């Protein structure tokens, strides 16, 4: 069986700046893959390309065995790409449950079903108690959780998580980690960006490191954190010692 997601030689330029250069990665079904790399390495940009916000300057994107490079974002969502935004984009004037219903409507055209689905997702993500609160009244961590819930409601095959576990205390982060595992156990493939090594490393099956828009290293988390290139570009000396 082919990989669920593949990027083939993807480039993205913003004027003179090269945000992604010749990025070829692949994510297999049922994996949790970590996408890490320095600030400004081009991780969120790559997410935007996969989700269809931007067309790549060059290269192609394959999802579920098909070339989706030309498809608009909504179409990719319908095919099973779910994503969160690093800078959260909640529907501020809508309640939490209504935010999630929007996502649920992709696969449930009957309102009653969409609503039931949304409630399920809120239970699943632990937001049920906040269902009737306006999204604008959530604290940042909750908004990030809402991003996840909304994306899950679209019943994706692939979930792109962009720093959804930041700003949590270690204990809270553990709940988040459990949630991601639960998601994977539900059969959803996860590609996640996260800077907190304590969280990512135990969680992911594989890690891909981007630097300056290029894939720097790829492999098992334990190997990646020991890689001197990764240490010098990303982790810093302290982690070299710790690892």
């Amino acid at each position, binding site marked *: 069986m082919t990989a669920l997601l593949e990027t083939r030689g993807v480039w993205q330029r913003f004027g003179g700046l090269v945000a992604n250069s010749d990025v070829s990665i692949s994510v297999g079904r049922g994996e949790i893959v970590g996408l890490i790399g320095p600030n400004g390495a081009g991780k969120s940009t790559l997410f935007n390309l996969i989700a269809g916000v931007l067309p790549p300057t060059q290269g192609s994107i394959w999802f579920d065995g098909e070339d989706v490079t030309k498809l608009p974002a909504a179409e990719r969502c*319908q095919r099973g790409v779910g994503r969160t*935004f690093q800078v959260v984009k*909640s529907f501020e004037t809508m309640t939490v449950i209504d935010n999630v*219903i929007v*996502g649920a409507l992709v696969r449930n055209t009957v309102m009653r079903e969409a609503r039931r689905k949304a409630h399920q997702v809120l239970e699943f993500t632990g937001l049920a108690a906040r269902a009737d609160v306006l999204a604008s009244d959530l604290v940042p961590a909750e908004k990030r959780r809402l991003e996840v819930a909304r994306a899950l409601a679209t019943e994706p095959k692939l979930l792109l998580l962009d720093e959804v576990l930041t700003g949590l205390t270690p204990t809270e982060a553990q709940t988040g980690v459990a949630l991601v595992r639960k998601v994977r156990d539900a059969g959803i493939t996860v590609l996640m960006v996260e800077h907190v090594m304590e969280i990512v490393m135990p969680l992911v099956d594989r890690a891909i490191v981007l630097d300056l828009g290029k894939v720097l290293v790829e492999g098992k988390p334990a190997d990646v954190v020991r890689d001197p290139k990764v240490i010098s570009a990303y982790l810093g000396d302290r982690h070299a010692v710790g690892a």
Partner: protein
Amino acid sequence: MDKNFATRRRRDLIVAAVLAALAALAPLFVKNVYIQNILVLTLMYAALSQSWNILSGYCGQISLGHALYFGIGAYTTELLFTKFGVLPWFGMLAGGVIAAVIAMGLGYPFFRLRGHYFVIATIVIAEIGLLLFQNWEWAGAAMGITIPVRGDSWLKFQFMRSKLPYFYFALALCCVAWFVTWWLEDSKWGFWWRAVKDNPEAAESLGVVVFNSKMGAAAVSAFLVAVGGAFYAQFLAYIDPESVMGFQFSLLMALPAVLGGIGTLWGPVLGAAILIPMTELTRSYIGGSGRGVDLIVYGALIVAISLALPQGLVSLFSRSKAKGATR
């Protein structure tokens, strides 16, 4: 599950039914034709504003050019009637369809525009429409169209003296516009629209086809407004470009929704119920002086309501209900 929500929807429907029934009985008590006239206008603007609200309130595409669709409804009906003898009932539908088609045709280029660029484009296109009608000889140009009134007839939807048929039509239109909104509010479309309004990029990532959502809203909105325009033309029995396509109509469609609560189910009705009688009464009872005092009072009230209740009059109601209310 979700009892609150279902209860609220049912409550809205019951309240609306009760209000509509009360309104239907109003003519039993209000015999005064001047007041009846105000009631007709109030219902008409409530319906128009409710329709405007679909595109601009729910879907967030602020249009200040809806006078175009109003005028198209009015002109289609009356041109078909006076030139080809087509009954206004068909003209009304034709006008609605034409307006919806035009709205979607304009949507192609327009919906790429954001914010002020979009608003100004809508103003400008309505102004172009006005100028074209003002110069279109076949459609009567500036002279307009006088609708020959030949006695009462439901077939031709014209009535010499009684306002009641107009009243009931306006009431029906208002109910339809309200019901369509109520119905769409809890549908895929309703959710898509609100999502598009709040954050199009996020909506797109959740499978919402932003462009189609806007098109749908524009079509429904334009159709209903055009039917309103057709009604107005029959009601007035005379139309000219300025008096059915002028910019003031675009404002008067938006104003009730804004004052009542934009993007809400009850805002337009509530806004029209306050605004239209206020407009009419200030003009009638203080406008006769010729000193502009009515303008000062009217304008000051608009400023006061906008500032005191930026979320609209509906916020008076929702605030008193349990906090953390859904909308």
